């Protein structure tokens, strides 16, 4: 039991000593300062990893606008057809054949 306790204590002490050192090494890696950017860099001169293609975003924007506009026009047309059908039926029932009345 004493041997187990001794090994456990050594492991905990080792972790306690090594953990801050490992964390410090990790932070040092994360905090590596980037070289400061001192002037404007045109988008096409950025490294490839920092460049984002504009075309998919642009195409998506235009496609969504077209879908919204034509989708909405279609819903208006569908709703108008349905209401005009109801109107025709009600006009017939009311003995008035003219749906515009």
């Amino acid at each position: 039991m004493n041997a187990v306790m001794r090994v456990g204590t050594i492991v905990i002490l080792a972790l306690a000593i090594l953990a801050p050192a490992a964390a410090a090494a990790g932070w040092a890696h994360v905090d590596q300062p980037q070289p400061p950017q001192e002037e404007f860099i045109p988008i096409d001169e950025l490294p490839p990893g920092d460049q984002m293609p504009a075309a998919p975003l642009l195409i998506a924007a235009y496609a969504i606008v077209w879908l919204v506009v034509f989708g909405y026009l279609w819903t208006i047309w569908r709703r108008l057809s349905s209401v005009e059908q109801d109107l025709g039926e009600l006009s017939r029932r009311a003995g008035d054949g003219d749906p515009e009345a």
Partner: protein
Amino acid sequence: MNQRTFAGLSIVGLVMFAAAPLWIARAPYESTMGLIQKIFYFHVPGWIVMFLAVFVAGIASAIHLFRQKPAADRLAHAAAELAVIFGIIGLVTGPLWARKAWGVWWQWEPRLTMSIILELIMCAYLLLRRYGGPGSDKLAATLAIFAMANVPFVYYSVNIWRTIHPATSVVPQLAVSAPGMFGPFVWCSVAFLVLFTVMLAARTRLEAQRAEVERLHLALEEQ
């Protein structure tokens, strides 16, 4: 609007809208943003029409509220729905542009935050009309007037608080600062305005037909 004017405007609007990408493709590239700046030609007209729709809804609601005009209420309802539709266009195209230009999809800065609040107010108007029950037209009308009062704050927010969003001076100076972009911008704005007029006429007719259906239902019940 008579049928011939409606048909003519529909054709003009759809042809202008279909031809807009050709104009936009010929427009020069903006020097810092490049290709992605071309979202501008649908994004800004989308917001112009959204603001116009909110004004139409607000003014028509005021007329309905103070003069008891059902036709004005129908116009307000139609305009409110269009305000939501064009607001969606602005709120979708904006983040797609921002992702490339600003590096983020969204920023909780004054213009964007106030724009989404305006859109939510118009959504609230429609929900109130749909589920509010009797008398909701009056309540919704006050909401539309409140939304209309909100528009100048949304528009001038970029001048009052200096934010990441461009100021209002960009579009008024476009004819001088970038003449090559001005033509396509005017073309797209007119296309959106014509489409808005056509959609508003059709949507108002739908409301009028619904009112007529309701009137006939009541007449049949009384027989």
